[in-house]
């Protein structure tokens, strides 16, 4: 079985139709932590869940990206949600159900889902 370049192009085009991945100025940004610790605890499924929500929403002003380990391995899988002009919020111990709620409440409506959040801020300083 071979995945041909045209197959990859189709996958990419499908998503680009509804999302603006990693480029341009978005209203919100979703970052899934894909370090070894995150991947071992289910980050790939969390990433897929966010991308499915993103595609279903039809929104074009939401950026999506990945990053590495945040140094909080016991809290994985994790994601950071950043609304333009606001502090990033780190969500921990994610599940598909939590992703759905976080996407609907925080990413779309701007309301932080406190019960699933670790806090405001980013592991990157400066």
């Amino acid at each position: 079985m071979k995945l041909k370049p045209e197959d990859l192009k189709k996958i990419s085009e499908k998503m680009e139709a509804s999302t603006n991945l990693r480029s341009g100025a978005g209203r919100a940004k979703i970052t899934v932590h894909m370090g070894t610790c995150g991947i071992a605890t289910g980050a790939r499924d969390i990433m897929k869940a966010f991308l499915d929500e993103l595609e279903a929403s039809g929104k074009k002003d939401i950026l999506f990206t990945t990053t590495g380990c945040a140094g909080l391995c016991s809290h994985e899988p994790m994601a950071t949600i950043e609304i333009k002009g606001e502090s990033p919020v780190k969500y921990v111990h994610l599940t598909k159900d939590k992703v759905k709620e976080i996407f609907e409440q925080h990413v779309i409506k701007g309301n932080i889902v406190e019960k699933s959040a670790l806090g405001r801020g980013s592991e990157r300083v400066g």
Partner: protein
Amino acid sequence: MEDLSLHILDIVENSIRAGSSKVEVNLEEKKEEGILLLNINDNGSGMDMETLNIVSSPFYSSKQSKNFGLGISLLKQAALETEGSFEINSKEGIGTELKAEFKNEHPDMKPLGDIMLTIKMLRLSHPEIEFLYSNGSNSK
């Protein structure tokens, strides 16, 4: 890691964080020999000899300045547990080449898992990077 597709995702994420613009993943099954070969090549920043010599140790991580941690040692362990082999070569400024050989019939062989989901997720989250994936079998 539950399966090889997650190991592959982890290693390719390393390649991405090492600044690669092109990553090749090749899986080849040699059926008669009962071997699965995994090759991952990137054109990222590469590693110097000192780093390369210790990178596959689980006791080494240099997250302060480098882009890898436990992932390479976990893949190496997964290969060696099947009585397979593991090799990594790298040149600074050129890229890194990783080869892992798995004995398919070994009781400790992990399942391949959802490799297509891994490739799809990589492609969607990093559209600026060229991913080449091939999966073939050789019965000769």
